[in-house]
């Protein structure tokens, strides 16, 4: 390429003619729509073929792991549901209670465990013992069964692990046919339950040990069943006459062995564990055994151990058959007798030793008592229920009993007698379980089932009078939490307001709210779910003080989001004008905004921004644009910390200006013109306050367009000038989503948009020709572009297009009532020459760039330049011909594929009968020559 510069002459275009020649082709398929299969029937069904098969799914056969997991869950839930009786009465299974107990009853003290450690020999016959010296007896006990090791000072975790180890040891011994050893392990485990040294841990210990017992029972049962070779089809329904003699003999041996276990508690527990095996021996297997076992527990002295033993009996029986009830009432009455005989002088040393209070001690009874009462109450006759209620009233330390009754009985039953229960709670002496816990239980029943209408107000008054007087804020709030839902459901705003006032009062003294955020949050959630009408909600004068209780920042954000979510979900009308609502929501939004600080996570910031934007969007004053603008001004001041909101506000105001224009049909009156100017001024002031430079750049261009549309010429100029000035301060990379991304792609896009805008921007008569474009070009030149991309080249190439468009007689698009340069200059020659000389400079820059690059990359640039030249330059001009020839030579030498593409385009171009025909033909010849 010898010449240092080329001349540029733009081609004259006839836009309207070109448009007419564009051919439209009808298409039948939408590229983004899925494959549909139309049945021969009338319906249309989608096939199972996914719209898009990602490579990972394609490699997998079957379902993906997550859906398998969810299926499994469904299956296991289904199985559990089978345990629930088909009739209406629900029955919570033990598994659900287990984890609650394990979580609740924990201890930080050390525990000890004594178990078998070596291989025990066969249990030798209890042989020579002379007198009744029980000490020696006990010693021999221990030593005969193999050496017992006492492991002390275990933490709770270690203890749990140790129990798990025992469980696996049991299974291993069993599998290696060391059945005697397995039995010894089980007996040792059962003995653990007679130890109440760390008493707070007892319920959890019970859960852990009974698991081992259950395992043992299952192993024995399965063994005997296998021995009896019962077919799988009658596996569940076999009767004892179908069992062969050998299996029966084995079964009998087991029972004999267990009957000679010396200690009471292991004997009891192990027999309960293998209770199911009675089925092999007798037709009516369980009743006598259950009654006997139930009365056996009377020999257990410690009431806590006794009640848990009873609980295990009830549990085993309920697993066998929920309808077995013969043992239940006797068990319950026995328990009551034990309970009433808990003498304080007996318990006191125990409490002192464990350093707990009576209340905590009583609480240890509740899991077992809950379970027993649930078994008793299940399908109980009403007379039985009445008896139980009666006993609940009469006993002295009845708090715990009442609590379990409230948990175990059906909510419908309880709400039917709600006033009676409220009475009972009032009468109950506050020993063991606090009244607040009882009220809370009652509240939960009242919310779950429907209290009869006539009782509601009385019940509320009764209960709330008592709750109000609770001194301890923790107790108070646990009750309030439940009863607020009751009020929200059945009563109106007046009652709710009173209750809220009370809650606020209780919580503000001594800053009690700081400790109870979760409960307060749940109260708010319940109120929001029941009161969907936000106008009423905000009209409650205690609502905002209640919201004020949340003072911790993270919690404030949480509840702000909660309220906004609820509002968005429930407000059917898109916009609102209500002052109260607007102000309240502004308060909430401001609250959320003020909690954002430098440490807030980006996600959180995004979420809050979204919520505030949805709020702003919902405020619409209709035609009163001035009010709307002042609202936006207020918002800008309030939400100055969040970039997203500020940008949104700019868009809103731009929207306002355009809306005004639409209404007056772009003929501004004396009233609207100042208004739009005010809008424009707003945006001009607001944009620099944004943090993101790129955002600023984009918004400048956009707002400039808006200003121009509204015939605010000087303001538009200011915008564009500001954009150009901004260009040099834009950094090469910014952080998006934590990753550093180059700004270049964005910049190129925005600049191209800018260039398109410049087409209809009229020149300022005070400044030079195309001063904006010149300014932009200088700024682009000055910007530090990445040399591995060719952004500058692409921008300059597009400038060529722009310049070509500038030189047309009538621009391809314009704004109504705005005279662009075509009208201003009227295609004056000087102007055209200006354009062409500018184009030459630009062209030179482009060619310099092409020369700098390696042949491969330059080929790409070459071809794009060629495309532009062919499309926009006047090919008849000789200079252009030379340029073309040079470029084509370069391209044919470096990349033939692109060359042939160009060739094709030229051939197509020939089809349009344009003034360029001859030139195209020449071009084609040239290209053919080059190819050879």
């Amino acid at each position, binding site marked *: 390429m010898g010449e240092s510069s080329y001349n540029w002459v733009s081609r004259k275009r006839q836009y309207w003619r070109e448009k007419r020649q564009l051919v439209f082709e009808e298409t039948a398929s939408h590229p983004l729509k899925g494959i549909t299969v139309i049945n021969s029937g009338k319906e249309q069904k989608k096939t199972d073929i996914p719209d898009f098969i990602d490579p990972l799914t394609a490699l997998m056969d079957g379902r993906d792991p997550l859906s398998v997991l969810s299926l499994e869950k469904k299956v296991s839930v289904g199985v559990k549901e089978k345990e629930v009786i088909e009739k209406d009465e629900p029955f919570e299974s033990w598994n659900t209670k287990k984890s609650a107990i394990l979580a609740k009853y924990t201890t930080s003290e050390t525990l000890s465990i004594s178990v078998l450690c070596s291989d025990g020999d066969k249990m030798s016959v209890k042989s020579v013992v002379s007198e009744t010296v029980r000490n020696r007896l006990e010693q021999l006990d221990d030593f005969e069964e193999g050496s017992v090791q006492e492991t002390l000072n275990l933490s709770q975790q270690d203890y749990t692990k140790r129990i798990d180890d025992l469980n696996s040891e049991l299974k291993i011994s069993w599998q290696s046919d060391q059945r005697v050893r397995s039995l010894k392990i089980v007996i040792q485990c059962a003995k653990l339950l007679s130890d109440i040294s760390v008493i707070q841990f007892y319920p959890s210990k019970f859960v852990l040990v009974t698991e081992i017992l259950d395992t043992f029972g299952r192993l024995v049962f399965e063994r005997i069943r296998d021995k009896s070779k019962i077919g799988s089809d009658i596996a569940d329904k076999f009767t004892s006459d179908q069992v062969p003699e050998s299996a029966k003999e084995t079964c009998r041996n087991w029972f004999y062995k267990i009957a*000679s276990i010396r200690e009471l508690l292991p004997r009891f527990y192990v027999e309960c564990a293998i209770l199911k095996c009675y089925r092999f021996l007798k037709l009516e297997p369980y009743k006598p055994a259950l009654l006997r076992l139930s009365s056996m527990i*009377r*020999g*257990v*002295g410690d009431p806590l151990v006794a009640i848990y033993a009873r609980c295990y009996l009830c549990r085993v029986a309920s697993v066998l058959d929920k309808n077995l009830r013969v043992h239940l009432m006797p068990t319950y009455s026995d328990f009551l007798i*034990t309970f009433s005989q808990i003498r304080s002088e007996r318990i006191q040393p125990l409490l002192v030793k464990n350093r707990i209070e009576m209340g905590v001690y009583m609480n240890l009874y509740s899991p077992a008592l809950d379970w027993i009462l649930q078994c008793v109450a299940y399908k109980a006759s009403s007379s039985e229920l009445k008896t139980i209620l009666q006993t609940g009233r009469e006993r002295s330390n009845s708090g715990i009993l009442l609590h379990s009754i409230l948990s175990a009985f059906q909510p419908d039953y309880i709400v039917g007698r709600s006033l009676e229960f409220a009475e009972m709670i009032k009468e109950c002496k506050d020993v063991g379980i606090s009244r607040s816990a009882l009220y809370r239980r009652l509240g939960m029943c009242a919310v779950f089932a429907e209290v009869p209408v006539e009782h509601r107000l009385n019940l509320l008054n009764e209960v709330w009078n008592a709750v109000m007087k609770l001194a301890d804020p923790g107790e108070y709030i646990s009750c309030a939490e439940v009863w607020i839902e009751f009020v929200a459901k059945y009563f109106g705003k007046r009652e709710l307001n009173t209750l809220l006032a009370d809650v606020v009062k209780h919580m503000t003294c001594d800053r009690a709210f700081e400790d109870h955020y979760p409960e307060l949050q749940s109260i708010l959630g319940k109120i929001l779910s029941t009161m969907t009408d936000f106008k009423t909600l905000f009209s409650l004068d205690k609502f905002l003080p209640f919201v004020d209780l949340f003072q911790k920042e993270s919690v404030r954000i949480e509840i702000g989001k909660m309220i906004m979510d609820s509002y968005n979900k429930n407000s059917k009308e898109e916009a609102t004008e209500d002052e109260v609502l607007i102000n309240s929501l502004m308060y909430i939004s401001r609250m959320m905004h003020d909690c954002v600080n430098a440490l807030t996570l980006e996600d959180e910031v995004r979420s809050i921004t979204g919520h505030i934007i949805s709020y702003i969007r919902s405020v619409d004053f209709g035609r009163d644009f001035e009010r709307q603008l002042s609202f936006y001004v207020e918002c800008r001041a309030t939400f100055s910390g969040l970039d997203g909101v500020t940008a949104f506000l700019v868009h809103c105001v731009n929207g306002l200006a355009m809306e005004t224009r639409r209404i007056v049909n772009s003929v501004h009156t004396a009233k609207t013109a100042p208004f739009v100017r005010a809008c424009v001024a707003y945006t001009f002031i607001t944009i620099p306050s944004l943090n993101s430079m790129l955002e600023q750049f984009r918004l400048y261009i956009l707002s400039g367009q808006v200003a121009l549309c509204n015939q605010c010429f000087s303001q538009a100029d200011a915008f564009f000038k500001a954009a150009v000035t901004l260009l040099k301060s834009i950094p090469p990379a910014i952080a998006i989503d934590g990753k550093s991304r180059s700004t270049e792609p964005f910049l190129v896009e925005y600049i191209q948009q800018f260039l398109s805008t410049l087409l209809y921007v009229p020149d300022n008569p005070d400044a030079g020709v195309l001063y904006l474009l010149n300014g932009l070009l200088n700024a682009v030149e000055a910007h530090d572009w990445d040399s591995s991309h060719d952004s500058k080249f692409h921008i300059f190439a597009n400038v060529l297009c722009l310049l070509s468009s500038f030189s047309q007689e009538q621009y391809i698009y314009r704004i109504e009532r705005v005279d662009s340069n075509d009208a201003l200059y009227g295609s004056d020659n000087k102007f055209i020459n200006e354009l062409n000389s500018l184009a030459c400079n630009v062209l030179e820059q482009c060619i310099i760039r092409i020369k700098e690059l390696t042949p491969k990359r330059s080929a790409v640039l070459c071809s794009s330049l060629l495309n532009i030249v062919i499309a926009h330059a006047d090919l008849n001009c000789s200079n252009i011909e030379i340029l073309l020839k040079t470029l084509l030579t370069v391209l044919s030498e470096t990349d033939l594929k692109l060359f042939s593409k160009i060739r094709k385009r030229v051939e197509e171009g020939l089809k349009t009968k344009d003034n360029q025909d001859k030139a195209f033909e020449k071009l084609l010849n040239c290209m053919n020559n080059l190819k050879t």
Partner: protein
Amino acid sequence: MSDVHVDIRLRRITKIYNEGDSATGVVLIVNNTKSDVSHQGVTLALDGRVNLKMSSKNIGVFESFYNSVKPIQLTSANIDILKPGRVKSGRTELPFEIPLKPRVANRPLYETYHGLYVNIEYMLMAEMKRSLRKDLRKEIEIVVEYKDKEQSFISPESTSFTLNPNSVQKTAKERETFPRFVIKGDLKTQGPIGSPMTGEITIESCEQPIKSIELQLMRVEVCGCAEGYSKDATEIQNIQIAEGDPCRNVAIPIYMVYPRLYTCPTLTTRNFQVEFEVNIIVIFQSQYLVSQKFPLQLSRF
């Protein structure tokens, strides 16, 4: 040699037989070698006897070691299963039937009983004699029980009892330090051995907390010989029926299953006696102990 062994399989799974029954089953010879095994005959012998042992109390330690009383033969029988010959490879089952008849008319077959000084056992032994090699033997025990009510029957009866400080045989002075208590109850002391011992015990009042209430089942064996006889009471098992301090005025059940083989119906013969008794022991937390003895009369039906 584990290549060949002998086993006895009885048809009756429970292995419980009555007098006059015939024990039927098969003698099983398992020949794991690849060739035939030669033998000098396979026999099956039934041996029922009472073994008596003198305790060291009356006679002295050394004499009691050397001088066990001669065992009393109750029944014996011998049948030839196979004449000398060869046994093929694999499993060979040889059915047998052996009668259980008392040797002497006036001495019926007593029930199987494993005790300390008295042992009544019935053993079946299968023997394969072999030349040049050790004989193969297998011995199993069968259990004999009385057949009908004529042989062994006692009508059930309960005994009620009261425990209070007066029942303790101490001097009046010592009794002062003893805690005051009243414990009542009843116990089935007569009845069939197959049904467990039942009863109730109620603590009506008690000053001190109780640590444990136990039932101690004892056997009382009397062995006689030329020099005299000895009577010994030893414990069979100890069952705890209350642990810790139970509630007052609540009927705590007494329930104990008589262990098989270690108990049998009360037996009184010319040479020896086997009787049972139970002790109810109440142990207090302060280590005081009260017990009362109840002799038992057990029968089969």
